[in-house]
Each structure stands twice: as structure tokens, then as C-alpha cells.
């Protein structure tokens, strides 16, 4: 077929395509799904998180992040940095050990896997002998001690993973050197913990599952006893499954030890195990004692707590989900100073607590923010926010963050070399609990800016003071809730479904599950006001139907005090209160259009008056009429809660939680495989043409405002366009009064056109193209001199995007001009569509507008405008990942976001010019000799970058910063 085309033109176009489009998955925002291991390198100041899917993620200073993925699809159970080096070791669920390093390449660091190793025992030994349960990277940086389920400790040389068989500490050796009355006849069980003496690197404590602790001297092979060495090396702390911990004094060369102190902190009644215990000294004061767990089993067994005791201060930090691991960052280069911050990884978020400020406030995380603190129900992206609006939003956001610590983020490893983002972008996420969160999406770190709650407008069952149950005097243990993960919505009707923000005027409209539409304005001051609801009947007298869904939300009648920020001034409630499925705001005309499965309406928010309503419901469509059964939701919720309960009881049962989690996962995987097999049983699909009698044909999918030629080709006028699920497009001509009478003269709307697409596929997008074939600019964009005014001379075109086709019609007389069939050709359907501008990476001033399309196959397409020709196609999301595809949102410059888990956005780019990705560098500490341990006389090892060039880069960067 190519021979029929002109070659020159074709190759030129191909070259242009290369200049305009390229596909990259750039960065993952949010909190990793199902984290399973935590590690920290005090020398690199880097945090590492492993996940159940085998991913390993490293974070340092904001903007410094790395990601690696193990080839094995197994959970990461342990992550350990090699002390004072850029290597780290991961232990997977399948008992394999992996060595990773940060290697510099072209001035940027990369995370690379450099080796893997599986422990091989003596021939014929059962697998449990070599099943690794504890890993200790020795401070020499050359040895790795591996404790196993069989009770042996294997010693391996790193980074080569060479087994040093002669140095292994076998169970027999230990048993023979420990007095018989300690051993008894019972097995010592697995190695539970390995710790190195902070003062004498030759001493290692081995904790066995049965409770015996052995201090082993790697050189002398003499034994003592212990799990946490106090910093001066004089004491050992051990924690136990009954919720007690013991402090042991260690005689230097003495074989005899004595229990100095034993305590069950939350005693009397049976307590749960203390999973981990740490004690850190302070320069001039009592030490910090931190431990996780140990709660009274009966009353608080379900809490996820870390207790911090410092002198007289005793707080039980109550977390939102299961604690995976924690560590403490201390001041000073040698990590010998006072503890400054506690870093806790729980299953759903990362919490950092400032231990040096009064009251131990939480430090706000610049990354790893749990996007899903309430489930995300929709998202909306606004590119290139004007500076003024940005300032106002961030200042009202700061007012909300007063309870956070003022201290800077304590994890500062590496250097971010990424250039400053070219523009300010906002990502707005709507949540199940009725909140809208504003995220700074300009750069690599997706950081929270402002949180808006719409729940205050309505009367819900939840008492706002309900969750303020903390701070009760004399409560024991002294709980303090920390973290923001709270997935349980009090009222599912509050859920946000659609968001539209006008970046020029600061008007925001949000719509929710119960047919509520709020119009809001940004106000820098708090204000007390009553929000009046306008109920709009979308059925328009259609009778014989019964709405079986949820009821309308009750609006508070008394005035409500709204904090500074976006404050509602108008509220529309649809009747029946079905989910709002389409929403648009025109800030220049001060109009909001909204649609549900029953019809659509136009609201004038200046006069607070509904202009018109159109019912799109097919009278025979019973399903749309009745609405969702609200019971479904509650079943889902109760299921979730009972699962949570089961999980809790499992937590309490488990001794070896990571292992058990792995087993649980295995069982789950098996179950999933079985389910998948069940689904392989013959599935059949009905082949039937769509008809007008199908369900939900009246559901409004898209609404669009345009100033275009609707009646004749010489007079343009404002218009509203609506597209439905049944392939129908409605066009209304709007008559707006002159500006001086805008407040008192009514707005009128007349039906102008109705187009029924023959293929009846849902209409997912409507765009009007101007005389040059470019999409019409956004409202107020021209007024702010940010876009050229649309070409009104040439004829306008209407582009209707259905799930199956892209079709261009002429205007004002609607006749088909051209089309691009998608489904008929390759069987994929349009799921998401957006208009984006692509700049060329070769010439600064060349660019094109195009349609960005995500199909149900998970492929991204770019379709040219106005010729509707397919330009490029990239696979992006697995087609099975339905929620990922549904969550996708496009930016105006060819980037996009989609959820890769409930808590993480993957960012991608289709543009050659707009690319946001981490570019960072981590300096490796240089070592002079085999003695890497800094001596107590204060000679510190140096942070020296391994190349002078890199040093210079750093200097120039620092120069830039100051």
C-alpha cells in the first residue's frame, strides 16, 4: 500500500513524529503497594523499601529516588545496606539473596543488581537448614552473617557471595560451648536475630527462637549471651514474646552475665510480643527506649503501636496499619549523636516522628505520601497553574499543616540533579470520604498541597468530634494516634466523582455520588455561611419509575464555618440522586453543566439558578431508573472490616510474621490461580448490535462548552454539548445577557441539534475545532493572553469521540466529513481521551495538538488533529488492569498518570519535550583500608565522591542553591 503514497511526504511525517512523540514511564508517585521490608543506610542517608511484588525502592532527599525489580516475582523480606557502602542486600521470600549497588553512569546514579546467591547447605541436608531467617551485614563490609531456620549461622564474603565454610557457626559448636542447663534436651530452633556489638565488631549476638542468646566472638570463638547492644556496648536488650524485655549487663571478658532488669511495660495481664527493641543514648539525659508491640493482648491487642520512652515521657504511638519495621536517625556524621527522628514503615504509609521537638510531632513526608488515605475515586489534572493561584492554594494549605514539625526532612542522601519543573502542575484527587486533595505534580515528588473536605456541607451520621478520642487523662497505655491512612468512609454518598477547576478564576466545582454538585470559590479568609441547595429534577415528569438507590444528602441548615481555602457558595442536588457522570464549568459564562444517568442540566452560578434540564432517560430503561442498591456498598465494607479482623488475629498469632505473610501470600496466589482456572471454563460472548433499548443509553458521558457556529456560518454563539452512552449528541444554543445585565437577565437555552450516531457507541468526548483545525481554547485562556484567540473565519468542525470511532462533522450544518474507526479495525475501545499539545524537541516553536487516547487494551494512541489519523501507538497498561485503565488522567502536555496500585500513581509521558523523571546522584563513601570502623578517638571516615567531576557538579549545585 505504501507505493501509492508519496514517499517524501511520508518520511518527513515519520521524522516529525519522532520529534514529537516518545513514550516513557517516568516515575511512580505515592506509597508502594504492600511494602514488606525496610532498610536504612545512616551513611548514605537513604531509605529502602521492599515490596511483596519484588520491587525495591530507595529514597533520599526529595527528588532522589531509585527503583529496582527482582526478576523473581517473590516478596522482599529483608533489606540491609552494607555499612558505609553503596551496596545493599535483599533477601527474598524464595530464600535468594541479591546484591544491589548504586553505580554512577553519565553523571547520574543507577540502581543495579550485581549479584545473586542462594545458600547451599551440605549435600542431603533438609531445605530448612539453609532457609535464611536473619541477615547481618558485618560492619567490616566484607562479611554477611546469615542465620537460618536450622539454627546455623553461615558466613559469606561479599560482594562476591563466597561462602566461608570454615568460619560458619554451626549449631553443634554453639551447643557444645553453652552449659547444658541452658540447652536442655530441646532444640535451639531457628536464628531469630543477629546483632553486632557496636564497639567490638568481633562480637556478634545470636538470638535463637527458643530464647537463648549467645554472644559469639568471631575471632576468639568464646561465647557470652544477648538483641540490642546499647551504644556503649555495655548492655544488651532482649525482647520477648510475652511482652517483656530484659536488660543485660555484659562483662567484658566475663562469661557470667546477669540480668540487670526485666520488665513487662504493659504488664499484669498477658501482653503481645515485643517485636523489636532499640535503645539510644542522648548526650545529656536519659536514653531513648523504643519498642514495637507489647500491648495488653485482651484490650489493645489489635493496636499497631510503637512505644517511645524518654525519661518521664512515655508515649504509645498508635499507627493506622501493621508495623513492618522502624529505625531511628541520629544526629551527627557518625550517627553517634542524639536520636533525631523515628522512621516507621507501616503497611499503608511511612511516618516520621521528630524526636527533638516538644510533643514529638510528625514530620510531613515529601514523598511516599499515601495517596489512598481514603480510596481515590477520581482525578483531575490542571497544567500550568498561574503563580498567583498557586501561591494562594499553597498558603491555605500551609494553614492546614500547623501540626506538623517544622524540621526539615531528615533523610537527605544523594543529590537531585533534575532541572526545575518548567511549569506548576496540580493533580486533584477526589476521595471516597468526600475530600479533594491537591497535589503538587510539577516534579518528581508528588507532594500534598491542600486538602478540601466537602463533608461539612452535609449532615452525616458521623459526628465530627467522633475520632477525637485521644488525650484522655490517665489512659494507660498513653496512646497517641499518628498517620493519616483512614480508608473507612462514614458515608459513601460523599464520594467525589468529578472535579473541574478553572485555574484562571479559582472557581472549582466538584460532584459526588449522591448527585450533589458544589461550586466553590477560593477565599483566603475563613467564612461562616449557609449553603443553600437547589434541587433539580432530571426526570422532568417521567413517571412510573422508582428510585431504589440511596437518598439525597441532607444539607446543614445552620451556617457552617469554612476554613480558608475553597468555600462552597452554591449547591445543586440532582433528583433522583444518582452519581454525577459528567461535569463541566465555564468560568467566563459562570455556568456549570452536570449530567447523571437520567439527564443533564445547566446551572447559572452567578444567579444561582438552574437554566434548563434535559431528560435523556429511555422510558424502558428500568435499570438506570432504579439506581444502585446501596446494600452492595455495605457488604463490601463489612467484608473489608472482617478481613481486617482476620488479619489482626493472624498478626497476633505469628511469630515470624514475614514468613507467615509469605505463606499467606502463597496461599492467596494459589487461590487466585484456581479462580483464574475456573474462569477459563468456556466463556461466551453474545454478538448483538446495540439498540436503543439497551440499559443506560441515557447516561451522560461528556459535557462541553463551545463558542461556535451552531445555527449559521456567520454568527457564532455560546453552546453546550452533551454526549450519552447511547451514542447521542445534544447541542443547545445559549443566549447570555450582556455583561452589564448578567446578574439580573435570565440566560436562555434552546435545543439546536441532536445527532444519533448510527453505531450507538457511548460518546466519550466532544471537541470543537476552530478554522485552523485547532481545539478551542479553555475559557478565560484568551482573556489572560495565554492562548491566541480561536480562528473564527474558517469553518468550525465538531469532533465526536465515541468508544469506537473518531468522527469529524462540519458546522453549522452537521455532515460527516471524516472518521477514524478504531473498534471495527482492531477490536479495541476508547476508555480515556484528552486533548494535548506536543512540542517538537528539535525546534522550539513547532508543536501540534493531538488527541491522547487510552484503549481498553491498555494501549496509548496519539491521533492527529484535525485529520484524525493515528500517529503512534504504545502499550502502556496491562489490559487486565481495569482499575489502572479507569484511573488514567492526561495532562495538557502529553503526560499522564494512572494508578498501579491503590496507593501509587505511575507517571508516563508521550511527549519528547515534557518529561518528568528522577535524575539523581549518590556519592559513595571511600574507604582507605580494611579497617573501616571509625575509631572512638573521633577520626571519622570521609564522604568523598569517587570522581572529581561529580564533586564539581555537586559544588556547582550547592552554589546554585545558595
Amino acid at each position, binding site marked *: 500500500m505504501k507505493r501509492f503514497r508519496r514517499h517524501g511526504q511520508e518520511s518527513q511525517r515519520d521524522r516529525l513524529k519522532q520529534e514529537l512523540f516518545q513514550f516513557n514511564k517516568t516515575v511512580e508517585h505515592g506509597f508502594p503497594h504492600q511494602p514488606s521490608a525496610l532498610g536504612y543506610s545512616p551513611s548514605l542517608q537513604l531509605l529502602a523499601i521492599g515490596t511483596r511484588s519484588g520491587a525495591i525502592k530507595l529514597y533520599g532527599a526529595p527528588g532522589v529516588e531509585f527503583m529496582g525489580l527482582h526478576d523473581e516475582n517473590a516478596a522482599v523480606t529483608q533489606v540491609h545496606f552494607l555499612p558505609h557502602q553503596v551496596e545493599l542486600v535483599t533477601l527474598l521470600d524464595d530464600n535468594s539473596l541479591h546484591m544491589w549497588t548504586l553505580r554512577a553512569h553519565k553523571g547520574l546514579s543507577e540502581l543495579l543488581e550485581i549479584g545473586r546467591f542462594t545458600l547451599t547447605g551440605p549435600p542431603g541436608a533438609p531445605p530448612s537448614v539453609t532457609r535464611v531467617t536473619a541477615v547481618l551485614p558485618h560492619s567490616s563490609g566484607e562479611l554477611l552473617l546469615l542465620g537460618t531456620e536450622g539454627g546455623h549461622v553461615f558466613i559469606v564474603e561479599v560482594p562476591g557471595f563466597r561462602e566461608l565454610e570454615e568460619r560458619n557457626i554451626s549449631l553443634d559448636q554453639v551447643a557444645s560451648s553453652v552449659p547444658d542447663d541452658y540447652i536442655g534436651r530441646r532444640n535451639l530452633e531457628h536464628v531469630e536475630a543477629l546483632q553486632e556489638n557496636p564497639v567490638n565488631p568481633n562480637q556478634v549476638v545470636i538470638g535463637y527462637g527458643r530464647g537463648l542468646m549467645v554472644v559469639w566472638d568471631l575471632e576468639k570463638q568464646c561465647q557470652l549471651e544477648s538483641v540490642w547492644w546499647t551504644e556503649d556496648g555495655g548492655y544488651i536488650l532482649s525482647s520477648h514474646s510475652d511482652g517483656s524485655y530484659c536488660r543485660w549487663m555484659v562483662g567484658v571478658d566475663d562469661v557470667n552475665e546477669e540480668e540487670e532488669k526485666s520488665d513487662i511495660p504493659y504488664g499484669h495481664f498477658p501482653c503481645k510480643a515485643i517485636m523489636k527493641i532499640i535503645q539510644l543514648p542522648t548526650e545529656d539525659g536519659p536514653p531513648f527506649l523504643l519498642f514495637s508491640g507489647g500491648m495488653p493482648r485482651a484490650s489493645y491487642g489489635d493496636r499497631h503501636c510503637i512505644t517511645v520512652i524518654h525519661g518521664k515521657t512515655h508515649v504509645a504511638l498508635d499507627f493506622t496499619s501493621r508495623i513492618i519495621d522502624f529505625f531511628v536517625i541520629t544526629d551527627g556524621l557518625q550517627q553517634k549523636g542524639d536520636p533525631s527522628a523515628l522512621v516507621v514503615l507501616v503497611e499503608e504509609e511511612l511516618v516520621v516522628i521528630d524526636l527533638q521537638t516538644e510533643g514529638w510531632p510528625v514530620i510531613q513526608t515529601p514523598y511516599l505520601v499515601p495517596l489512598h488515605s481514603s480510596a481515590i475515586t477520581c482525578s483531575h489534572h490542571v497544567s500550568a497553574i498561574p503563580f498567583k493561584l498557586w501561591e494562594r492554594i499553597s498558603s491555605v494549605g500551609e494553614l492546614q499543616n500547623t501540626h506538623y514539625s517544622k524540621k526539615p526532612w531528615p533523610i537527605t542522601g544523594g543529590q537531585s540533579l533534575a532541572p526545575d519543573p518548567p511549569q506548576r502542575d496540580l493533580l486533584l484527587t477526589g476521595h471516597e470520604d468526600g475530600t479533594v486533595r491537591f497535589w503538587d505534580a510539577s516534579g518528581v515528588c508528588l507532594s500534598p498541597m491542600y486538602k478540601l473536605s466537602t463533608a461539612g456541607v452535609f449532615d452525616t451520621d458521623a459526628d465530627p468530634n467522633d475520632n477525637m478520642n485521644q488525650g484522655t487523662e490517665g489512659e494507660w497505655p498513653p496512646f497517641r494516634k499518628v498517620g493519616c491512612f483512614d480508608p473507612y468512609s462514614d458515608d459513601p454518598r460523599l464520594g467525589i466523582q468529578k472535579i473541574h477547576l478553572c485555574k484562571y478564576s479559582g472557581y472549582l466545582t466538584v460532584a459526588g455520588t449522591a448527585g450533589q454538585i458544589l461550586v466553590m470559590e477560593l477565599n483566603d479568609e475563613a467564612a461562616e455561611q449557609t449553603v443553600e441547595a437547589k434541587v433539580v429534577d432530571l426526570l422532568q415528569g417521567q413517571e412510573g419509575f422508582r428510585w431504589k438507590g440511596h437518598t439525597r444528602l441532607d444539607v446543614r441548615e445552620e451556617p457552617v464555618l469554612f476554613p480558608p481555602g475553597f468555600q462552597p457558595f452554591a449547591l445543586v442536588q440532582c433528583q433522583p440522586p444518582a452519581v454525577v457522570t459528567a461535569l463541566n464549568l465555564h468560568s467566563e459564562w459562570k455556568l456549570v453543566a452536570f449530567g447523571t444517568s437520567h439527564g443533564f442540566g445547566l446551572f447559572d452560578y452567578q444567579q444561582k439558578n438552574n437554566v434548563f434540564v434535559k431528560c435523556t432517560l429511555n422510558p424502558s430503561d428500568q435499570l438506570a431508573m432504579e439506581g444502585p442498591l446501596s446494600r452492595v456498598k455495605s457488604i463490601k465494607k463489612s467484608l473489608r472490616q472482617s478481613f481486617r479482623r482476620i488479619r489482626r488475629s493472624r498478626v497476633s498469632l505469628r511469630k515470624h510474621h514475614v514468613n507467615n505473610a509469605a505463606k499467606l501470600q502463597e496461599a492467596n496466589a494459589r487461590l487466585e490461580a484456581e479462580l483464574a482456572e475456573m474462569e477459563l471454563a468456556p466463556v461466551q460472548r*453474545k*454478538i*448483538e*448490535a446495540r439498540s436503543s433499548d439497551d440499559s443506560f443509553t441515557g447516561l451522560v458521558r461528556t459535557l462541553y462548552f463551545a463558542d461556535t457556529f451552531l445555527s449559521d456560518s456567520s454568527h457564532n454563539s455560546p453552546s453546550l454539548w452533551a454526549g450519552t452512552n447511547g451514542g447521542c449528541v445534544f447541542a443547545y444554543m445559549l443566549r447570555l445577557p450582556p455583561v452589564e445585565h448578567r446578574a439580573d437577565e435570565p440566560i436562555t437555552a434552546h435545543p439546536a441539534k441532536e*445527532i444519533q450516531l448510527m453505531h450507538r457507541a457511548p460518546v466519550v468526548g466532544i471537541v470543537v475545532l476552530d478554522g485552523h483545525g485547532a481545539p478551542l481554547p479553555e475559557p478565560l485562556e484568551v482573556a489572560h493572553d495565554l492562548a491566541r484567540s480561536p480562528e473564527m473565519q474558517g469553518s468550525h468542525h465538531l469532533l465526536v469521540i465515541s468508544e469506537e470511532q473518531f468522527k469529524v462533522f462540519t458546522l453549522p450544518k452537521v455532515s460527516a*466529513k471524516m472518521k477514524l474507526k478504531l*473498534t*471495527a479495525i482492531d*477490536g*479495541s475501545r476508547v476508555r480515556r481521551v484528552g486533548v494535548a499539545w506536543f512540542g517538537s524537541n528539535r525546534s522550539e516553536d513547532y508543536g501540534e495538538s493531538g488527541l491522547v487516547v487510552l484503549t481498553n487494551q491498555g494501549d496509548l494512541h496519539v491521533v492527529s488533529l484535525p485529520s484524525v489519523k493515528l500517529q503512534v501507538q504504545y502499550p502502556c497498561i496491562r489490559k487486565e488492569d481495569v482499575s489502572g485503565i479507569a484511573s488514567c488522567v492526561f495532562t495538557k502536555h502529553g503526560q499522564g498518570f494512572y494508578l498501579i496500585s491503590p496507593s501509587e500513581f505511575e507517571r508516563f509521558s508521550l511527549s519528547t519535550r515534557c518529561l518528568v523523571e528522577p535524575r539523581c546522584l549518590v556519592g559513595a563513601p571511600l574507604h582507605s583500608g580494611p579497617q573501616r570502623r571509625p575509631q572512638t578517638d573521633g577520626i571519622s571516615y570521609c564522604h568523598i565522591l569517587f570522581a572529581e567531576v561529580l564533586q564539581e557538579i555537586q559544588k556547582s549545585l550547592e552554589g546554585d542553591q545558595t
Partner: protein
Amino acid sequence: MNKNHRVPSSRSLSAVEVKSKFGAEFRRFSLDRSKPGRFDEFYGLLQHVHRIPNVELLVGYADVHGDLLPINNDDNYHKAISTASPLLRLFLHRKEEADYTTFGTDSLTRKKNTVLSAVLLRPDANKKKPPVIISLPRDFRPVSSIIDVDILPETHRRVRLYKHGQEKPLGFYIRDGSSVRVTPQGLEKVPGIFISRMVPGGLAESTGLLAVNDEVLEVNGIEVAGKSLDQVTDMMIANSHNLIITVKPANQRNNVVRSGGGGGGGAASGSSGRSSDSGASYYGYSSPGGVGAAASMPTHIIQNFPVGEIESDEEDEDLVIEVGGEAEPIRRTGSNYSMPSLPRYEPHLNLRSATTSTLSVNANGTLPASASSGSLSNANATSTTPSPDRAMERRSLEEDGTVITL
């Protein structure tokens, strides 16, 4: 069944005497010539007077020339009433037993096969030049056709279903399955899409051209290999107004057997509308120029039915309602675009026919033993006419070149 029939009121001068024959039984009654009523009422009346309420009937009458003509809609019913002088002779048949060939000119006097049966299977020809013999009643609307017989391997069948204007549902289901293909490595099991169920009374079932367990190979010229069940479902629904499915029938016994020397001209005329076009057969069998000739030929010849029918305005009209006006179909102004990077329909057909014929050569010619489903007709074809195989083999080699250039 409509039982609400209109009883003739009285015997007046304007009455039409009716003598109706069903099997060996006669019934006599009269109708008002000026108020004949509707056909369905008349049909109900016939069932009533013969006491056969649930029997599907084919109604015929003898006109003034003695021809047996059908009555199946209001128009020809009124015609029959108005021309009856004075006796109207009716002949009723059970629909399932009906012999359609009996209708036509002089059919009552001279039993002769007319071309009507062929016309029935050639709707395209009907559309272009309406048959002069009799009018085409509603029952004779095309519902399906077999097309491209001359360019497809004998083991495949390309079926076109006419949904347009029909109230009947398409009425079939598809499923995943696996089929055996002949590959250079031998027999290989590959996933495929199969018809899993027919809805009784649906369009697909009524045509008799599709059956359960037929493997779906193409939808409107696009191969389904490598596509998921959902994708194929969406493709079929997107093309539902004019669905062309290429299947490999599970029952290979009813295949169209090509007659005559395939190496020659257009002898293998199937029932496709353009089969008489010499260009099609030129392409199909004897292209001496090989690659270049095939590729440089106008696309409408390569494709065996006109482009207009796939993309016809009539089939794909959107309706637009202007304010206060009547609904009118949207007229097309510009040219029609389709995806440039994906194969267009026509060239793809070209490619397909090349590859499928390659496959058929494998099945019939070089590997006759392994063609498991070749069955009866294949054997016949190869034994009686060995020459087409050679011709096809040559062609396939030449067109492998085409495949590469594409």
C-alpha cells in the same frame, strides 16, 4: 399469531369470492373488495378458516395470466383482491415445505426453474438492477450471502449478514477454543475463536450459513488471530450493521466445490456480486504479471465487493435532528479516512487472500495427508482437477512477494 381478523360483513356485489386450497382441503368465503383490510388480518383469517392456527403458511394465488404469485404483504394482497375476477384462487403451503421455485411467470402452466433462486442469493445484483420478473417482497430481503467464493480456499466460507433494517437479532455467541493449524513445524495447536451458540430465530441461525463450532477467521476482512475474545466481540458489534465473517465451517461437507478448470478464466463463479467481473478472476487465478500486476490493480477489483458496500453511506448514516425539523440522515461530504498505520480493508483483503491461499495450498497440495478436515469435497477437487492446485501454488509463491512488500 394475529387472531384479530376481520370477518367479511355481507355478500354484496363488491364481494370477492375466495377459494382457498390447503393440502387436499378447500375453503370458500368472501371478502369485501373495497375494504380488503391488512395482510396480517387476512393471514389470520386463512388460518382460522382452515383451522390451522399455528401453522406457518406460504400464501400464493393464481393471477389472470394463470401465474402463481405470492401474497405476503399488504401490497400484493391488495393487488390480488383488486384483480380477482371474481374468484380468487389461493394455494396455501406449509412454510417449511414450501417450494419457492413454484412462483413466477407461467409457473402454473409450465413447471420451470426460474432464475429466482439464483437472484435470491445475489442481493447485490438485485439492488443494482431490480429484477423485471416479479417485485421483490419483504420476505425476499437479503438476510445473508456467501461471498468471495472464488478467492477463498474451499475450506473457508465468507458470510455476510444483513442486519440493516431487520428487527431480528443477529443472534449468536462466540467463545475461545483451540484449532489445529498446519505450520512448517508440523501440526500446531493454536487458540481460535469459535461460534458457541445460535439463538433460535436469530438472523445467524435463519441463514443456515453459520453453525456452532465454526471457527471465526476474519471479521470484515480483519484477521482475528492474536485477538482476545472481547476484542473480537467488540469488532463484531462495531461492524454489526454489515457483518462479514469468514469462518472455517466445522462441517466441511457442504463446501462450495469449484467446478471447471481453475487455471482458466472466470469459471469459478461463486455467488458474489462481482464474480462475473473478469478482473476478479484475473486476479484470482491467472495473474501473469505476478506481484506487480496484482498490486497495481485497482483496489475494487482485488476486493470482490465494492468499497461502497462496506462503507456505504446508507449503512453508516448518523441521524441529525435540526431544531424543530425532521430527522435526516447525515450526508457525507469529504472522503473517508481510515487508520493509516493499520491495514485498510482492501489491501488487507489482498494480503489475506494471499495468505489463506498459501495455507490452502499447504492443506490441499503439498501436505494432503495432514489436512485433517479436508474431507470429501477436497478429495474430489484434487482428484478431478489437479491443475488449479499447481496454478495456486505458483500464485502463492508469487504473492509471498506481495506479502513482503506490504
